[in-house]
């Protein structure tokens, strides 16, 4: 590249976040950040409120790319001959304006890369999802303190994981170190915070170029080993090996672990990597929409055949499916587990069903037991 290489790292005061968001908005980006929705937090449009980054939003980042309900197309079914179909969903998703997620966590950012395997693989391209991905820059905040259910480190991710992020913010005492991770991230910073010959000027002043080596040492100091240990400790690899055993499907262990499950959709709907959906027609009068909705393998309806037969008749088969899909089938298809260790399923389960425990049980017993 002919271009003068810009600085690799920047610094921003913690109090400068709102100005940072303001600068993005001024550059015509829609800023999506964690917002309060009743008692819960989820990603939504940041309007004039102060930005608050919770430890982990209640609802996952996936909703911004794979919303809970999404019209795919619309149709008219008025007269006998007049059946019109319009790709309204594609049109709508194409009109989405460029946007920036400000305040993702590393687990959520990684989840998008896992979802890409499903929605924008070499075989399929889901236009609704793809357009949103293309139009969104992800700014992630590294985690300094694990929640009680976090186990990202065990799934190959971690509190400083850069996978899926375009820019990573790493917290120091009263500032963040800003690290552009992807070309896109670099491009965004260049565009919104232009660097003149004598460094930043005007609004760009909120970003300060910093010396890479010094700052890396400061960042490393926050990554003390004992803290990392708190994010780890779940034998995911051994569990995957056990679950890929041909006998795992019929293991008697399922009999034990499914029992307390209530069969709700808390774990699947809040999971950043669960991606099952159903498609239905919503018709009002002479027109309708074909809508894609989240579905959950924990519901009996998920596999109910028109004949009335259900190949997953009880909570046991349904619960097994959730675990096997994440830690066996997805691995087989895509080479990685479909879990980023965010712990949402662990924390929000009404009966404290704990994925970490289930993985440990399979890791120690093996699949054939």
């Amino acid at each position, binding site marked *: 590249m002919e271009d003068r290489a810009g600085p690799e790292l920047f610094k921003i005061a913690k109090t400068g976040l709102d100005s940072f968001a303001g600068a993005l908005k001024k550059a015509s980006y829609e800023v999506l950040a964690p917002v309060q929705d009743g008692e*819960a937090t989820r990603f939504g449009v940041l309007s004039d409120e102060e930005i608050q980054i919770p430890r982990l939003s209640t609802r996952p980042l996936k909703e911004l790319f794979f919303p809970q309900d999404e019209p795919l197309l619309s149709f008219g079914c008025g007269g006998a001959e007049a059946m019109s179909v319009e790709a309204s969903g594609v049109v709508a998703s194409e009109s989405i304006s460029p946007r920036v997620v400000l305040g993702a966590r590393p687990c959520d950012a990684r989840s998008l890369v896992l979802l890409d395997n499903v929605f924008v693989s070499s075989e399929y391209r889901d236009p609704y999802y793809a357009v949103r991905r293309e139009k969104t820059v992800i700014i992630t905040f590294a985690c300094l303190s694990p*929640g*009680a259910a976090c186990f990202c480190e065990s799934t190959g991710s971690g509190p400083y994981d850069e996978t899926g992020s375009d820019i990573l913010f790493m917290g120091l005492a009263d500032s963040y170190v800003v690290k552009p991770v992807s070309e896109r991230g670099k491009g965004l910073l260049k565009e919104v915070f232009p660097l003149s010959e004598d460094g930043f000027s005007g609004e760009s002043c909120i970003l300060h170029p910093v010396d890479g080596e010094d700052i890396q040492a400061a960042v490393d100091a926050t990554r003390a080993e004992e803290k990392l240990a708190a994010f780890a400790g779940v034998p995911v690899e051994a569990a995957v090996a056990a679950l890929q055993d041909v006998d795992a499907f019929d293991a008697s262990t399922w009999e034990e672990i499914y029992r307390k499950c209530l069969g709700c959709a808390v774990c699947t709907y809040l999971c950043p990597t669960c991606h099952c959906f159903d498609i239905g027609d919503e018709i009002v009068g002479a027109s309708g929409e074909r809508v894609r909705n989240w579905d959950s393998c924990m519901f009996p309806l998920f596999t109910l055949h028109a004949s009335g037969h259900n190949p997953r008749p009880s909570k046991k088969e349904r619960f097994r499916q959730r675990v096997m899909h994440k830690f066996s089938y997805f691995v087989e298809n895509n080479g990685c587990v479909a879990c980023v260790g965010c712990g949402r399923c662990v924390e929000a389960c009404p009966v404290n069903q704990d994925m970490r425990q289930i993985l440990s049980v399979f890791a120690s017993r093996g699949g054939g037991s």
Partner: protein
Amino acid sequence: MNKMTDGAAGNGARDTIQEGIRKIAAKMLESGEAQVFIGYEEGTLPLRTTPAFITCPEDTVRLVWTPFCENNLTVYLPEYKGRDDVTVGLIVKGCDVRTLVNLILENQISRDRVKIIGVPCEGVIDRAKVAKVLGTDRIIRDSKVAGPSLVLEGDGFEVEIEIEDVLADPCEACRHPVPVIYDVLAGNGYEVSKDENPERAYLEIKQFVELPSDERFSFFARKIEECIQCYACRQACPLCYCPECFVDRQTPKWVSRWRGLSDKILFHLGRVLHVAGRCVDCGACRRACPVGIDLRLLTKHMEKVVSDSFGYESGLDLDGLPLLATYRRDDPDDFIL
């Protein structure tokens, strides 16, 4: 508010109850009186226990009794319906036993297929309240119960809060802390005080109920808008045992998964009407909601309509009839719009 009357709601009383539960459960399994015992064991997170299904007498040492025993375990009983080979032993609190009474009255389980250990209950804690008191982003690493207080430890802090201040809403105004039926009462001899004022329980919903109807609707709609249709409220409710819920019907399809507000409202109003005269305010539905919607505004109001109109309190009388199975010519009907 319920309090152990033997002084400072001591761990002494709780430990005695826990010991009692373990012994009785072990005896039930040993003697073959019960084939499976459902109780609580240590959870994997602070402030939590988790349901335990125990079949070996030796495993009963895992059973615990703490103010974290929040789940209503009777939710699992309809799964044993018609299983004449299994008698289920289980722990019930004052509210849980009332859903059990209803399950028996509604023929979901027969009385002789359950062995009931009743526990005089001093209330369970509401985790959301603890988080509010502490500040939601302070991460609790360990929680201990010490007499009337809760000791919470986290990164760089140790805080002690009164259990009384973080009791679940239904527990704050509970009028039946001692189970109305049981085979054995654990911790027999301990008494818990109860709230004698029936109106107290309705104070929290008063504000909502007394809003002008348009404001009440917009408040309700705003709350219901937050619902993600995960149906955890339904799944956690022991009385929502229909093998196929009306929202899951496909032919015809009553409720769409499309997150339209009217579909969500239909679910919630349908559900609350289906538990009318049956709901016992155990709080399981509200506790299960991952986005914190206060479903008690609906269930509590329905309970009041039932109590004002029919003088009926659900789940107290094993020899009576369910409210909806009775009819008198002079039944009031002024609650019908």
